[in-house]
């Protein structure tokens, strides 16, 4: 009898713990999602301003260097590797980690390829001696 009551006590304690954890999780989820909807507005602000920066910077690029411009933009668009690294980061292996590793490889091809080919192009542009 006493054993059962002990077990019951244990169980109720555990239930309490789980409930606590659940409420903590819920509040943290609410926090992140609440914080996230704030980020959307913030992110759109950044996006729009960056588009203006891009507009003025790109129009100032001389037409002779439009091919290297494509090379550089191609390389820097691989900054997507930031997401790939986060995805590949966890220790435990599951499908999302492998997706992340594939993305790291693809982005790395682009980063190295893009910068190297741009450098090759630019090193050929010479002034009249």
């Amino acid at each position, binding site marked *: 009898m006493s054993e059962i009551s002990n077990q019951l006590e244990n169980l109720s304690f555990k239930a309490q713990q789980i409930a606590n954890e659940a409420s903590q999780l819920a509040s943290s989820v609410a926090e992140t*999602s609440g914080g*996230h909807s704030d980020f*959307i507005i913030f992110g759109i602000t*950044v*996006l729009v301003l*960056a588009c203006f*920066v*891009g507009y003025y*910077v*790109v129009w*100032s*690029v*001389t*037409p*002779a260097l*439009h*091919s*290297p*411009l*494509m090379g*550089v*933009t*191609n390389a*820097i*668009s691989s*900054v*997507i*590797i*930031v*997401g790939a*690294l*986060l995805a*590949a*980061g*966890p220790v435990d292996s*599951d*499908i*999302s980690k492998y*997706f*992340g*590793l*594939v993305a*790291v490889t*693809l*982005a*790395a*091809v*682009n*980063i*190295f*390829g*893009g910068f*190297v080919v*741009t450098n*090759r*192009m630019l090193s*050929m*542009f*010479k*002034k009249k001696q």
Partner: protein
Amino acid sequence: MSTLTTAAYLVSSVLFILSLRGLSHPSTARRGNFLGILGMTIAIVTTLSNPGVLSYKEIGIAFLIGGLIGTSIAVKIQMTALPQLVAAFHSLVGLAAVFVAASAYYNPSAFNIGTVGSIPIGSLIEMSIGTAIGAVTFTGSIIAFGKLQGFVSGNPLVFKGQHFINLLLGLGIIALIVKFCIDQNQELFWLIVFASFVIGVLLIVPIGGADMPVIVSMLNSYSGWAAAGIGFTLSNNLLIITGALVGSSGAILSYIMCKGMNRSFLNVLLGGFGGEQAASAGGVKDDRQAKQGNAADAAFMMKNSKTIIIVPGYGMAVAQAQHALREMGDLLKAAGAEVRYAIHPVAGRMPGHMNVLLAEANVPYDEVLELDEINRDFSETDVAFVIGANDVTNPAAKTDKTSAIYGMPILDVENAGQVFFVKRGMASGYAGVQNELFFRDNTLMLFGDAKKVCEDIIKGLEN
């Protein structure tokens, strides 16, 4: 995200902006490229120091494999093959975006966006849009690559109801995204990917080979927007800023290319322009005879002229004639002539293609001028030497309102004292329009492979 991380990402963003800024002049461009590399290094190191990133070994291997492949391709690639290389690289960005989004969907906690099955709706929308753009970029770029490389016919592939099918597919993708945001179902996620793959192919197949400069720029733009989309999923400003830079860069380049052909972006996207179809429809049978010359005549006439403007086009790239052309230019300079190069905005298969090829052949960049800078000088020029270009010199663009290229800005080579046309045959150009210039009194046709003709002229000049 800690304050330090955010600050480091900000530094990367600024470096990326400065790297594009550096391209405003050839003398600062290499420093610009270096700043870009620095920015990327900071971004990667910062991300690696994130407490959630632990599997350094696997990441290191993946990074090394990718880096080796990328470097060896970039070192070996021929400069004439640049357009297809860039298209191939774009496809990788698109595919990487799809994989990152898929990973975020299967393990949202690594990205701080809730848990499996209860991802907040905002993140789902961003994720699915990023996926769709990435997937379209992937297959679209592969088709563009195939057309530029010659794996796929460069002729536009048009069939009935094409645009209607694209419209249906587009609406279907939107519907799938809406359903996915409600259900968070994994089949729906992969359906979005698949449908976007299909629409990527369908969007590019109807577009002809010579319109590829616009398409390559457009896909460049898409790869930027895909990165920005993933930036929203990660709540990461660096990705959003970089995505916006790349996105606007590609959009501006497409705009410049469209303007260089006097066509609207929509007109290019709807496709069907150029190729055999247009050639048969637009090419009126012509019985007139063009005057034909040989390399010796050309060498003799150019040796005795004071000013020469060379107009290169895609044909020069195909024949790999840039080195022979530069050698010819050097000999003419040695004989006392002023030699300059005139570049049309849409010459070649990607923006700035001709400039890179001439630079490769050691032509100094201050001898290479854009249309606006040099067009007025043709009337005071003794010889215009057109090599591998056609439509961009056709005066019909100014006079013939019925012409397919009416309104397109052209290089006024007709105003030069003598015009030489290096061409393989009398075939019309991409637009399928006969070039009036071939039949003018001051035009001499030099038939043959561009490289061969240049070499023959060099022989003539040396004698």
